[in-house]
């Protein structure tokens, strides 16, 4: 190991990782989409995950968050092994992800969708709805208040009563981020948070992510927009053909020959 700001492959053995991935493998048919991936996401960071189309970024998210079953390797969240666990169990362990294409909730208003976020609500138990009415109502009131505060913080409180299906793509991305914070995650995985979002909103989103990071949420962010991700994240992990090519600070990654080769002069200079 050297003191270079960029490392060949992943940087592992960090002091306090929220997410630890070791030797992760996944093949679809004959195609090795995830190939022996090691990754540490240090608590308190905004870590960027970049790589050319088809590098396996979304697949890595799906493996880590329990949506795909890995062929091999381990995933730990806050030190707890969650390899092969169901997505809700991974979320309960503190890792929450958003999707590359926003999910609209048919028939629900924005504030109602927000209320799905909080974990372990008393009123989610059939029995408690009848036997513990007082606590259910009290929690509901507190959650609703928090949902409204969160919507205000994300400057979308005016949509509280709007059906989720009527929002634009950009607004929906904001709601998704806002709702994800309602789960009190330790680490949030965002898959292309500004894809299809106008530059003004993208800037706002950057600010919100930084604020949330200051509040203690760790982020792992996939993003193709180089200016956005290089400004937001440090370190940056580059994935290429299913394995980690390099990891380092944005400046070093941006000028690294291997990275430029991987992109073949593509989106890096976009």
């Amino acid at each position, binding site marked *: 190991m050297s003191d270079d700001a960029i490392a060949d492959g992943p940087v592992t053995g960090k002091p306090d990782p929220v997410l630890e991935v070791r030797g992760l493998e996944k093949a679809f048919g004959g195609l090795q989409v995830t190939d022996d991936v090691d990754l540490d996401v240090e608590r308190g960071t905004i870590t960027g995950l970049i790589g050319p189309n088809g590098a396996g970024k979304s697949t890595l998210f799906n493996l880590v*968050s*329990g*949506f795909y079953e890995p062929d091999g390797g381990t995933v730990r969240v806050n030190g707890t092994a969650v390899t092969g666990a*169901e*997505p*809700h*169990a991974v*979320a*309960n362990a503190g890792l*929450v*992800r*958003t*999707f590359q294409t926003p*999910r*609209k*909730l*048919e*028939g*629900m*208003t924005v*504030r*109602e*969708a927000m*209320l*799905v*976020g909080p*974990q372990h*609500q*008393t*009123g*989610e*138990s*059939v029995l408690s*709805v*009848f036997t513990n009415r007082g606590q*259910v*109502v009290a*929690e*509901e*009131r507190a959650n*609703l208040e928090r949902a409204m505060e969160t919507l205000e913080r994300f400057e979308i409180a005016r949509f509280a009563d709007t059906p989720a299906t009527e929002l634009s793509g950009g607004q929906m991305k904001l709601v998704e981020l806002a*709702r*994800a914070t309602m*789960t009190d995650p330790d680490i949030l995985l965002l898959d292309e948070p500004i894809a299809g979002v106008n530059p003004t909103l993208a800037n706002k989103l950057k600010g919100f992510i930084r604020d949330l990071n200051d509040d203690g949420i760790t982020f792992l962010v996939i993003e193709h927009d180089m200016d956005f991700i290089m400004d937001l994240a440090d370190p940056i992990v580059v994935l290429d053909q299913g394995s980690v090519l390099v990891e380092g600070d944005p400046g070093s990654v941006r000028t690294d020959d291997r990275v430029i080769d991987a992109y073949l002069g593509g989106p890096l200079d976009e």
Partner: protein
Amino acid sequence: MTNPIRAWYAGLTDAESNVAWSVGVLFVLFVLGVASGVINLSYGLYLLALAGMYVLLSLGLNVHWGYAGLIDFSVAAFWGLGAYGTALVSARDSPLGFTVDPIVGLVVGLALAAAVAVIIGIPTLRLRSDYLAIATLGLAEVIRSVINNQSTWTNGPSGILGLPLFFGTWPILGDVPRGAPTYALDVCLVAVFVGVTYWALRRLHLSPWGRTVRTIRADEDLAEALGKNAFRFKMEAFVVGCVVMALAGVFYAHLQLAITPGALDPTQTFYVWIAVILGGSGSNRGAFFGGLVLVLIVQGTRFLGGVLPSNFPSAAVRLLVIGVLIIAVMYARQEGVLPAQHELITPGTTEGNDE
């Protein structure tokens, strides 16, 4: 001075007030029909009791399809499990030789349905929703043929006769004369069943549980990503709906005082589906209304059968009427007559969604 009825009426949507009016007019016609002797009193009360039963079935299926998006084709089977459950332990002719009180029969019927729901749910509810549809389609046939063929347990095709009246062993209620008075008691009983079920389902629906189940229906992956155990919630919704269907079956068995496997005909399942879709999936009021319309069609066409010439194909006409009606509703109002419109937030926590 505040008039609660006027306030309630003012708060209704157009669809709701239209429905309220039509139900009101029908009810007045019905009462006039009974009063003038056109409809025999016992039969009239029997019709009301049957309406209550269909409302229960629709409410149950609404939990499956309307709340949770579960495609259940064994409505008739779970209804039959309730009916057979109570018949087997309470009927004079039961091959099992018990004659317990119908209250115990009720518990047995509901428990039987819940147990079968869990058994069928474990392998299917983790899979995509079409698997439950296929499994329940099969289950309905399995249950019917088990009942038909296991004569030593179920009396087979001849069914179980000699069920007691629900209130048969009760002090004063057990002594009322047979006919209109016992049917009146049945109407009261089903009114209680419907009332309690409606209240309980509404409370469940307008709660974090109902909201999570609605999220799972809309997007199961999203619900999982937000830490919700979709399998658990779907299982709960499945069991709750099946228990409500079985409640309808228990009631029916003690209304008819007999149950035969023929009553588990799959056509019943599709009638109930029509009621839920017509009423508006996901809405308890819609399911309630759909159940009423159903009894009107099923029994109304039968009633007309007496007026029409004897060679009139009334069974075929009934199916035709149902077909035309469902197409008309889907054409004019895809979301059903009384679609769900509530936010699923516990009442009393926001302005505007108090009871």
